């Protein structure tokens, strides 16, 4: 079991969700986050004071998957989020020790799906 964490540009979220659905990956948690990479975002200007914007708005996805779904998940995220510009984001894949479905108490492979 793996936990896939992706940090992507907010405007790519809909595309990524569509691609995940195409691969039958339904379960995903999405949060608004702030982050910093190498790229510069769209500078905001307030009364002519330009905000350097050291932290940029991003979207973070968390997806728990069984081994055979790791590749399709990464492919879907990459296909949906890639524009070729600096700042498209990153994908992290972590080992996941356990997964428990609260309603039934099921664990492991069964609980993820």
């Amino acid at each position, binding site marked *: 079991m793996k936990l896939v964490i992706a940090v992507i540009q907010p405007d790519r979220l809909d595309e990524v969700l569509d691609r995940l659905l195409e691969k039958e990956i339904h379960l995903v948690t999405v949060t608004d986050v702030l982050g910093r990479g190498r790229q510069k975002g769209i500078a905001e200007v*307030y009364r002519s004071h330009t905000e350097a914007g050291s932290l940029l708005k991003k979207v973070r996805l968390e997806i728990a998957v069984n081994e055979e779904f790791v590749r399709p998940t990464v492919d879907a995220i990459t296909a949906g989020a890639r524009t070729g510009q600096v700042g498209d984001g990153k994908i992290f894949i972590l080992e996941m020790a356990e997964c428990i479905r609260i309603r039934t108490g099921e664990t492991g492979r069964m609980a993820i799906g």
Partner: protein
Amino acid sequence: MSRAGGLLSKVLSGSVLLALIPGLARAGEAVAASPIPKIDTGDTAWVLMSAALVLLMTPGLAFFYGGLVRRKNVLSLLMQCFMIACLITLQWVLFGYSLAFGPDWKGIIGDLSWAGLRGVGGAPNGDYAATIPHSTFMIFQAMFAIITPGLIIGAFAERMKFSSFAVFSLLWATLVYDPICHWVWGVGGFLRGAGALDFAGGTVVHINAGVAALASALVLGKRLGYPQRISPPHSLPLAVLGAGLLWFGWFGFNAGSALGANGLASGAFVATHIAAAAAGFGWAGLDWFFAKRPTMLGMITGAVAGLVAITPAAGFVTPMGAIWIGLGASVFCYLMVSLAKAKLGYDDTLDAFGVHGIGGIWGALATGLFASKAINPAGADGLFFGNPGLFLVQLKAVTVTVVYSFVVSYILLKVVDFTMGLRVSQQDEQIGLDLTQHRESGYTVLQ
């Protein structure tokens, strides 16, 4: 003249009994035409309504300011504005109104004979407004006394102790606002006597508050992390709502200052609206040109600057004059806020000086340029209508206000700083004023 006004006059003249006898009714009418001050219901309705409009500007200002600060300080701004509304109302009733408008003492201040609103009732005061109850004039003016210290909040936002803020505001209202109000508007006030024109409070309200704001920014110093690590406005929509309420309320501020429902009020209403539109448009254009995009914050800042600038001039200028005053306000305030402030390095958090101080000074001087007797025979002609003298009188009123307001505000701030401290602790400033000063949060994270 209205029925109620006529009836009141008859009561005053004791002619009601006579009027009961048919043949003598006409005699009663004749007595009613005597110069006894007579209430006009239309005028009274408009000024009461205007007072409510001006009151609404203070919560409007709270939203305008509240939207522009960081989310951890939003309540502190709303709270300070509401505190001002409550605190200054009591001050005004107890002694403020009497100091500002009461019987004159040497052209400097009113005496205390109207303290507690003694004798300020339903009968008109012919010196100020002959056709509305004295209490109507008083409550209309109360709303100005409230919003003026409210404007200063913009300069010391996000770092002032609430207790010190309350003490400073009370002292400032009493020792700065009330005297200047008396000089310019009070019968016997020395600037009123000099012929300075201030239709609705450009000098008394905006220059006064704007200059005090500059003093506050200088005495309190910059916020932690200014200018590099200050987050952008936490809610521009809230600020836009506030600006909308300010624009709306300003019709009461300016058109209400005609103190009657008449052509002068209508002219002031029209000029007010035109100047706000011209300045909002102007600022957006400047943003577009210099920063490559027109900004929402720029447009509302411009509109407010235009409203500030037209305030002293509203009842004295033509519609075309109002356009020039509005456009001028956008240019001068833009230069101050965008270029000069950054160079000078002081932290006027929400540009209370840049907008109200600079806009107010421009408006007062522009009144000396664009005023025309053709618009208001009770006014004067400005420089562009062949009378350079008015411009000099306006310059004098501006200078006196700037100097007095700055010096006394500076001293009051230093006194409060010395006795109780003006700023919150560094840690409290980082946590935010909402939690540290009020034990509340503007927004919940979980539901």
